C-alpha cells in the first residue's frame, strides 16, 4: 500500500539491522519479565513446562508502556466483592494493553527517509533526484499543475486520496490525485477564500465572496449557507462534524453539518484574522491575530479558552502537530516558535529565519514544512530538539499560498500563485493506516458504512475543551459544593471523600518542582509554628487541672479562660 520512496537496498539493509538489534533487546526483556512478573511465573510453574513451546513471546516493555492507559484502581475500594470485581477488570485492561502491544506486529510498514553520506546534505537532494530513484508509481506523485486562475489553495481529504483546489478567481476543482481522475471542475464566478472537504469526499465546502457554499462531487451546489458570510478561513472537525469558520468581522461560526445547525456563533473580538489552525488532539481552534496572540476557541464558550502571546508582531501562520503536542507559530518578525500546546507552556524552541514564513504545516510524522515565499523548507525533529538545518528544500518559481501534507503518503501538496505542485517528502506520512479510521483505498460501500459509523460516533460540540479527557473526570468542584450543602444540614455526618484528582494538572516542569519545594518549606514552617504554639501554650494545660468532687462537680463555678 505504500511505495518506497528512496534507495531501496539501503533501506532493506537497515531494517534487517534493526531487527537483529531488537532480537538482542528481547532477550534482555525476558530476563526483566522474569524478575518483575511473579504471577506470570507462578502460572507458568503451575502448568507443565513444555520444552517445545516456551509460551507466548515476551512483549517489548516500551511498546507496553506506549499502550498503557495509566494507573489502575488502587486499594481504595474496601468492599470485598467490588474490590475483587475491579481487580478482575484491571486484569482485563492489562490484557487489552498486552494485546494492543502484540498487535503492533501487524504494522508492517515502516516510514521511509533520506539517508546520505556524511559530506552530503539532505537538502542537496532535489525532487528530480528523488523521482529518478523511486519506482515509477511513486514518481508519478511528483507533478505540477499549471492553472490560470490566480493563487490556489489546496486541501487533501482525510484519507489522503482526494484533492480539492480552490482559487482566488473562482476555480474550484476536486480530483482523485493518485489516479488523476477529475470529480468536477467549475468556476463559481466569485472569489474563493477557503475550501474544505466534509466528512466524505462527496461533499466540499467553499467560502466564497459572500456566503458559504457546499458542492457535491459532481459540482452541484447543495447548500448556500447564508448564516456564514464573508468567511476567511475554515476548518472541518471530522469527529464532531463541525465546520468552524471565522469571517472578516471576527465572527466565529460553528456549523454542525450533520444536523445543519449553528452550534456556536460569536464575535471573537480579535478583528480580522486569517490565521487559523485546528488542534487535532482536542478539536480546539487556534486563531492568530495581528497582535501576536494565539487564542484557543471552543464552540460553546464565547471567550478564548487560553491565550498565548507568541510574537510581538502580527502572526503569519500557525500549525499544530497531529498528536496535539506542539504548536508552531510564525510572525512577521521572521521568527518561528514551537510551543508546548498540550501543557500550554513554552516556547520550546525559538528559531530565527531569513524571511517571514507564509505557511506552516506539520506532517503525520511531525515534519514541519515552512513556506518562505517561493521556497518550501521541511524540518525534521525541530520540536523536541533544536535543528540547525532543514531536512529538505524545494524551490519553485512561484509564490506559495498554502500547502498540506497528504495523509498516509509522503507527499506535500503546495498551492501556489499559478497552480498546484506535488512533491515527495520521504518519511513524512504515516505508513500504517487504520482502514476503519480512514482508508485510502475505500470503495463506495465502505465509504457509506464509514459515514454511518462516524455519525453514530459523533462527539457533541460541548465536549471540546482544552483537555479532551475532561469528560472522564468527576465534576469535583460541584461535588465539593454538594458536600457543603450536606454540611449545612446540621447534625448530619458528611460523607468522607478523597478529592485528589487522578492526574495532576501540571507536568513536572521546573516550575512544578519549585512549587513542591515551596510546599515543603511551607509545611516546615507550619510545623515550626505548631511547635512554637506548643511552647507558648505549655502553662495552659496545668491550669486546666481541677480537683474533682465527683457528682458535685457541676456546682463548682468554672471560670472561662480567655484565649
Amino acid at each position, binding site marked *: 500500500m505504500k511505495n518506497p520512496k528512496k534507495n531501496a537496498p539501503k533501506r532493506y539493509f537497515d531494517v534487517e539491522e534493526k531487527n537483529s538489534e531488537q532480537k538482542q533487546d528481547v532477550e534482555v526483556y525476558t530476563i526483566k519479565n522474569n524478575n518483575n512478573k511473579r504471577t506470570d511465573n507462578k502460572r507458568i510453574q503451575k502448568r507443565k513446562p513444555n520444552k517445545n513451546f516456551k509460551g507466548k513471546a515476551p512483549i517489548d516493555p516500551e511498546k507496553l508502556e506506549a499502550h498503557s492507559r495509566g494507573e489502575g484502581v488502587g486499594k481504595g*475500594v474496601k468492599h470485598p466483592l467490588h474490590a475483587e470485581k475491579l481487580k478482575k477488570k484491571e486484569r482485563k485492561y492489562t490484557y487489552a494493553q498486552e*494485546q494492543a502491544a502484540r498487535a503492533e506486529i501487524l504494522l508492517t510498514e515502516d516510514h521511509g527517509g533520506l539517508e546520505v553520506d556524511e559530506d552530503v546534505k539532505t537538502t542537496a537532494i532535489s525532487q528530480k533526484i528523488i523521482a529518478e530513484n523511486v519506482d515509477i508509481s511513486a514518481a508519478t506523485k511528483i507533478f505540477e499543475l499549471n492553472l490560470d486562475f490566480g493563487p490556489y489553495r489546496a486541501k487533501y481529504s482525510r484519507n489522503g486520496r482526494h484533492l480539492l483546489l480552490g482559487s482566488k478567481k473562482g476555480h474550484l476543482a476536486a480530483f482523485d490525485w493518485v489516479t488523476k481522475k477529475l470529480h468536477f471542475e467549475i468556476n463559481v464566478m466569485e472569489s474563493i477564500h477557503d475550501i474544505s472537504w466534509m466528512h466524505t469526499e462527496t461533499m466540499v465546502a467553499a467560502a466564497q465572496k459572500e456566503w458559504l457554499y457546499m458542492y457535491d462531487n459532481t459540482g452541484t451546489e447543495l447548500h448556500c449557507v447564508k448564516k456564514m458570510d464573508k468567511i476567511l478561513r475554515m476548518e472541518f472537525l471530522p469527529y464532531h462534524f463541525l465546520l468552524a469558520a471565522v469571517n472578516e468581522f471576527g465572527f466565529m461560526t460553528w456549523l454542525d453539518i450533520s444536523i445543519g445547525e449553528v452550534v456556536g456563533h460569536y464575535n471573537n473580538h480579535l478583528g480580522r484574522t486569517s490565521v487559523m489552525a485546528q488542534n487535532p488532539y482536542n478539536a480546539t481552534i487556534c486563531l492568530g491575530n495581528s497582535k501576536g496572540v494565539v487564542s484557543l476557541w471552543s464552540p460553546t464558550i464565547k471567550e478564548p479558552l487560553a491565550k498565548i502571546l507568541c510574537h510581538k508582531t502580527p502572526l503569519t501562520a500557525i500549525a499544530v502537530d497531529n498528536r496535539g503536542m506542539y504548536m508552531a507559530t510564525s510572525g512577521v518578525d521572521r521568527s518561528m516558535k514551537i510551543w508546548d500546546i498540550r501543557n500550554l507552556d513554552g516556547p520550546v524552541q525559538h*528559531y530565527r529565519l531569513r524571511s517571514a514564513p507564509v505557511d506552516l504545516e506539520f506532517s503525520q510524522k511531525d515534519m514541519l514544512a515552512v513556506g518562505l515565499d517561493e521556497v518550501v523548507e521541511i524540518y525534521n525533529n525541530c520540536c523536541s530538539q533544536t*535543528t540547525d*538545518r532543514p531536512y529538505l528544500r524545494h524551490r519553485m518559481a512561484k509564490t506559495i499560498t498554502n500547502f498540506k501534507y497528504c495523509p498516509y503518503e509522503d507527499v506535500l501538496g503546495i498551492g501556489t500563485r499559478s497552480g498546484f505542485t506535488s512533491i515527495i517528502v520521504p518519511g513524512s506520512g504515516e505508513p500504517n493506516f487504520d482502514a476503519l479510521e480512514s482508508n485510502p483505498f475505500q470503495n463506495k460501500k465502505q465509504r457509506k458504512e464509514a459515514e454511518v459509523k462516524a455519525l453514530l460516533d459523533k462527539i457533541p460540540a460541548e465536549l471540546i475543551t482544552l483537555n479532551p479527557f475532561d469528560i472522564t473526570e468527576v465534576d469535583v468542584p460541584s461535588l465539593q459544593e454538594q458536600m457543603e450543602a450536606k454540611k449545612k444540614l446540621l447534625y448530619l455526618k458528611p460523607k468522607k471523600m478523597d478529592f485528589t484528582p*487522578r492526574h495532576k494538572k501540571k507536568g513536572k516542569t521546573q516550575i512544578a518542582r519549585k512549587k513542591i519545594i515551596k510546599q515543603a518549606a511551607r509545611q516546615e514552617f507550619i510545623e515550626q509554628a505548631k511547635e512554637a504554639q506548643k511552647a507558648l501554650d505549655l502553662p495552659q494545660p496545668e491550669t486546666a487541672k481541677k480537683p474533682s468532687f465527683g457528682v458535685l462537680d457541676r456546682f463548682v463555678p468554672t471560670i472561662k479562660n480567655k484565649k
Partner: protein
Amino acid sequence: MEDIEDTDLVALEHDRLISAVSKLDKTQHITEPTRNEPTNLNSEFNLIKRTNKLNIDNVAKVLEDTAHHVQISKKLKKTQSGAKVLSKPLEKPQAERIKRATGYEETKKKVGRWDPVVARSRTVDYVTFPIKHVSAKLEPTSDFLTKFKLKSELEKELEEVDPQPMVEDEEEEEPIFPKSYEEMVEYRQHLAKMRAQQSYKAAKAKRQSKIKSKKFHRVLKKEKLKQELKEFEELQKRDPEEALKKLEGIEKARALERHTLRHKSTGKWAKNKLIRAKYDKEVRQQLADQLSVGRSLTKKVQDNQSSDDEGDDEPTPNFTLSQDPFNPWMVQRSDKSNVNAEFDFGYKKFVQNKINKHKESDDSDSDENDVSDKDISYAKSSHPEPKEEKLTVTKAIKEKLTAPKSKKGKKAAAKSKAKKPLATSNWDVETVDDTDNKPKDNLEYLKLKKQKPKAVIDEELLESSSKTAEGMANEEKDETISELVKAAQTPVQESADSNIDPNRFIEVKPKYLNTAISQVENEYDQLDDDQVVPRVNIEEVFEEDDVVASFRQEKEDEINKDKPEDINLTLPGWGAWGGKGVKPQKRKRNRFILKAPPKMPRRDENKGDIIIKEFKDPKLAVHKVKDVPFPFESVKDYEASIRAPLGNTFIPEKAHKKLIRPSIITKAGKIIEPMDEEELLVPKNRNFKNQSVMKLLGRKK
C-alpha cells in the same frame, strides 16, 4: 380400664348433681381458696395459704415412740435428705429459645456450605446457564454402535412362540372431566347462587353502612349483640372449649380498649356531661357507667380457679350500677358478673339486664342459666391452662391492688410533674438562672457550638474555589490545621511570594536558521542595495512594547477577576452609630466579614505570557459525573476505573469481546434448573478461598 372410666364418669356426674343441689340453696358460701400467696398478715383481704408440701418432720415425730418406728422415721428422713428434687423444667419460652438457637446453628451450618458456591458465582466474570452442560465430547462411532444389538435367531423364535405382553401404560391420567354433566351444571348453579347471595349481602352492607341514623345503628348493635350472645350460649352447651377460646378474645378487647380513649372522660360527650353532672344525678350515673365500662374492659383476665370450687352460686345481688359502679367487689364477687366482666362490655350489660329480668321472673329460668355457667367452669377445670396455674396471686389481693392503682397513678403523675423541672434542668433556662454555676456551663456549651458553625463557614469558602492539584493538597492541610495556618498564613504567603524567581523562565535562545533566501526578498535586497536605503529590522518596525504590556495587563485583570473576595455581612448602624466616617467596631469586623479563602494557584501561574481561563463550562458539566458511585470512595479510584476505552476501535477485538462480555450468559431455549448439591463438590467451588467475600455474602443472608 373401662371400669375406671365408668367410675370417673359416675363421680363426675355425682359432683354435678351435688353442685346443682347446693345451688338450690341461695346463701352465699365463701369457700377458702385452694391456692394462696404465703403472707404473714391475716387480713380480710388475703387469706393465709397453707403449703401443700408434706413436712416429714411432723410425720416422723408421730412415729418416734417405738424402736421399730424409729427405724422407719430414720428411713423417712434419709429419703428426704437423700432425695434430689428434680430441677424445675425450663420455662416454655426459654426452652423454645434454646431450641431455636440450636436449630439456627444447625441450619446455619447447612446453609453455610453454599457460601463458597455463591461467593464464587458472584465474583466470577461471567456465569453461563444452564450450569450443568452436557459434555460436547463425541463418542466414537464404534462405541456408539455397540449399544445397538440385533436380536439373535433364538430370540426371534422365542418371541414368536411367546410374545411379550404389551406393557400398557399405567399412567393414571387424571380424568379431564372429573364431573358428569349434571354435576357440573349443579355445581355451576350453586356457585352462581353463592355469588348472587354474596353480592346481595355486599349491597345490603353497603346500604346499611351509609345510614347515618344513630338510633338505627344502636338498634343494630343491640341486635348483633343479642345474636352473638345467643350463639355464645349455644356454643357453651355444644362446645365449651370453643366457648372458652372465645372468652380469651377478651384479652384482645382489653388491649384495644387500653390504647383508645373510647370510654374515658376526655371525649366531647363526656365533657358535656361533666358540666351537667354536678346538678343531674342521672348524668353522673351515665358518666360513671361509661368509666366503669372502660375499667372493666381494661381489667386483666382474672383467675377463675376460685369460682370452680365455689360450686354453688348465690343469686347475684340486685345492684344497679348507680349503687357503686366502681366497687370492684361488687363487680367481681359474683361468678356470673365476673365472667361477664371478662367477656365483653356488650355481653356484660346484656347479662346484667337479663339477670335483673330473671330476678323478676321465675327462679327456674335462672337455674338453667346457672347450670350452663357451671358447665363452663367445669370445662375450665378440665382444660388445663398453664396461665391459670401460673397465677398465684389471689383474687383478693389483686382486687385490692386495683383500687389504689388510680390513686397511685395520680400521685405518680403529680410526682412526675413536680420532678419535671428537675429532670429537664439542662434545658430550662429559668430554673437554671438561679444557680451560679449552671449558666456558665450552659453558656460555654453554647459558645462552643457557635464557634463550630463559624469554622464551617470558613471551610465552605475554602472549598468552593476551583479545583487544582495544588488546591487539593492545600485543602486537606487547611482542614486539619485550620487555625494554625490562619495564624501562619500571611507570613507564609509572603515567603512564597519572595520565593518566586523573577526570571523564572528558561529563556529560549533564538536559533538562527540558515534558511533559503527567497527570490522576492533577494530582489528587495538588491533594490535596497541599489537605492541605499538604510536596512531596517522588520521586527523593530512591527514590534510594539505596547503589545506585551497590554497582554500582561489583561492577564492581571483576569487573575483579579477570579480572586475571591471577602464577604461583608455588617449592617451599618446596627447596634452602633452609623453614618459617614464611622468605622465598624473591630469585633464586628471580625465577626461579620467572612474572610475569603486563600487564593488557589492558577494554571497559568508562573507560565509567562499565557492566560488560561479558569471557569467551569456548565454545558460540559452536564455530561460529567457529579457523584462518585457506590463502591468507590475516592474520585481518583473512580476515574481510574473508567480510564480505559472498551470500544473495538480502540482496543483489539479479542480484548473488546472480553471486556463487554455479559455477566450472565444463558443459552436460548434451555431450561435453567436450580443448583443441586453436586455443585458443592465441584472443585472450582471447593477451592474458592476468598474469605472476605464469603463473609460478606454470608452476612447478608
